[in-house]
């Protein structure tokens, strides 16, 4: 079984904004084992 999440989150609007602290960033890598409640991104 598989779960797919699709969601909106803040993003850098332009290359100049790419350092913005409001960007959504994943904190997992491909192939990582994750558990319920563990942060996927912030």
């Amino acid at each position, binding site marked *: *079984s598989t779960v*797919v999440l699709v969601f909106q989150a803040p993003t850098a609007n332009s290359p100049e904004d790419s350092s913005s602290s409001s960007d959504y960033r*994943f904190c997992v890598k491909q*192939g990582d*084992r*994750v558990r*319920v409640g*563990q942060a996927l991104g912030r």
Partner: protein
Amino acid sequence: TGDSKGNAFLVPGATMATILMLGALHARRLYEDKKIEEKREKGIELEFHQDVKASFLGILPLRSISRAWGSFMSLEIPVWMRPHAYKAWARAFHSNLEEAARPLEEYVSLQDFFVRSLKEGCRPIDPDPCCLVSPVDGTVLRFGELKGSRGMIEQVKGHSYSVPALLGNNSLLPMEPEGKNESEEEAVGDKSDNSWLRVSLASPKLRENISASPMKGLYYCVIYLKPGDYHRIHSPVDWNVMVRRHFAGRLFPVNERATRTIRNLYVENERVVLEGKWKEGFMALAAVGATNIGSIELFIEPDLRTNKPKKKLFPTEPPEERVYDPEGHGLKLEKGKEVGVFNMG
């Protein structure tokens, strides 16, 4: 039941052959998994390659197989045998028995054990209000930002599927679905039918709160659950679920090999989609079934039945929709709360 001496040896012989065959299949699977892991460690990305075995799966009655598997797994196991059976399962699929909420003797069947809940505190929920947490135990297959008007997610290198196809053409997804019929009419169904309300979501009724913003990106994350994983689904954030959509598709396996060999796997398989909004905008969770884990149960809608025998198998069949709150506020779900569970068969 045979009374001759020859027949007395027939059943143990057949049982032994079955056990050996299952053992050989499991060993082969472990070997293939190891080879894939080695390739991944070397940085070799696996590519899509449709093969004969995958085509053959298309003509198998996978739904019937899934249901038969579920019935077999629901057979009651004698109390004395339960700990041995579940420990064997845990060894084969790397489950952690110490996390089970109840003593092993209390799980009447493998199905009951499979959907077990966990002891309090086994899965602490990240309290950061700015984070989105994993709704399941599993392996991260893909994640990233959706770019372009078609919103494609890569299944594996060389093949992608579209998010509107995954979530449904009526999705609240804040992007223009490809080929959407602009003149789609609003259709309110019979309210007396279990309070079901069918609303074409092309209307602005539910869309008005989820608008595309230039400052918001669309992201995705695909998580695969192995047979030994904890199979309950939790809420990834505080959000309001507005719509549930059930696609009665096929029930292909969704393992590593299947993702590399079966086209549009997640779009063709039976799935339940929950859509709504969280503080940053749109949120959708799609639970995709498979042959062995064929049905999806929602705690927020206990009446929902998936993997039904009479369902047509054409993936083009429009999904069943349920609007949880026609007023547009939706059903509130707290971060970490149990939403549903994947059942065997």
